[in-house]
């Protein structure tokens, strides 16, 4: 029983610490959490900690999550996010109370899903839910804290407004969906403006083709008429010398 209770206390400690480390790069965060977890396990084993009271002494020597997190930010050269623990964090703590160490994933994942994927750590499953929680992000009026998953997309619209003079800067988030409307306008204008050119070119090509066909047809007619004449002449000649072996003789000469 006491062992379970101790596990709970440790999980709670690590969970709160992780919540405070949201502003750290994922690898540093994982490393620190892993180090502290190993430290606690070591201490419990080597000091024979069995009661919650003894465990609290170990955790006290370790330092409060706030103190450890502050040191982590300082060593990482990053500003400590003052708002880190606000709102959502608390809720997650109670919700994931039974999830022990892996429970942290859910909240973190929602905050920075990109990092979560990069970590590909031992807790990939809990990360699945993040996508689902992303819709919650739309209302980013929460705070401008650390980084919300949506920032990548949202942040994008800040820059695009300048270049290309794209209209989405006015409407903010919704305009994004309106991205498609953009595509249509250009195509319509282009086709209409180029229609005349295309029609003219088509007509010219058609005319040229007709002329060509006309010329070819004329040439064929001329050749055809000249060809027809010989046959008549031949037919006339052939009947006359048909009896003598003139035709057969001619072909025979070349073969011999």
């Amino acid at each position: 029983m006491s062992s379970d209770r101790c596990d709970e206390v440790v999980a709670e400690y690590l969970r709160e610490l992780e919540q405070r480390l949201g502003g750290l790069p994922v690898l540093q965060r994982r490393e620190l959490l892993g180090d502290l977890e190993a430290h606690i396990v070591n201490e419990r084993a080597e000091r024979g900690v069995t009661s919650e009271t003894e465990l609290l002494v170990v955790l006290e020597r370790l330092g409060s999550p706030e103190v450890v997190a502050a040191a982590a930010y300082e060593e990482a050269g990053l500003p400590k996010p003052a708002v880190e623990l606000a709102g959502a964090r608390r809720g997650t703590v109670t919700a994931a109370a039974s999830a022990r160490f892996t429970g942290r994933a859910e909240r973190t994942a929602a905050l920075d899903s990109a990092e979560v994927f990069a970590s590909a750590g031992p807790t990939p499953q809990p990360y699945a839910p993040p996508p689902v929680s992303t819709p919650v992000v739309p209302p980013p009026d929460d705070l401008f804290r650390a980084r919300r998953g949506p920032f990548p997309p949202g942040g994008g619209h800040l820059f695009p407004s300048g270049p290309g003079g794209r209209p989405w800067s006015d409407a903010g988030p919704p305009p994004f969906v309106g991205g498609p409307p953009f595509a249509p306008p250009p195509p319509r204008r282009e086709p209409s403006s180029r229609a005349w050119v295309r029609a003219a070119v088509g007509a010219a090509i058609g005319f040229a083709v007709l002329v060509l066909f006309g010329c070819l047809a004329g040439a064929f007619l001329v050749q055809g008429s000249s060809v027809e004449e010989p046959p008549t002449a031949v037919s006339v000649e052939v009947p006359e010398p048909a009896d003598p072996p003139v035709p057969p003789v001619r072909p025979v000469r070349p073969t011999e």
Partner: protein
Amino acid sequence: MADVAQLSTSLRRGTLEFCVLAMVEHEDRYGTEIVRRFGDERGLAASEGTIYPLLSRLRRIGWLDSKWSESPSGPPRRYYALTDDGRSALEHFRTEWVSFRQTVDRLVGTGGA
């Protein structure tokens, strides 16, 4: 006015990391071992948990190397070792520290005698 805690923090900053380097200068030590040692040093007044971020930074800048090793009793341990760069940094600090300490002692009147 800066309180005592603030003074301690200020003094610790910039020197604690070299104490860590010196601790693994001749022998590899695992995290908990290093951390306990600092926890026992009253003068440093550092929470044990604050040493781990420091170890992490020293490893990232290449002054320490670490590797996990099985423990005869209990979970695997992460052992830290001094790298060549870390050794150079430690030597440089020792030289600077002696000079710095002598200057401060002279100016503050803590030179003894």
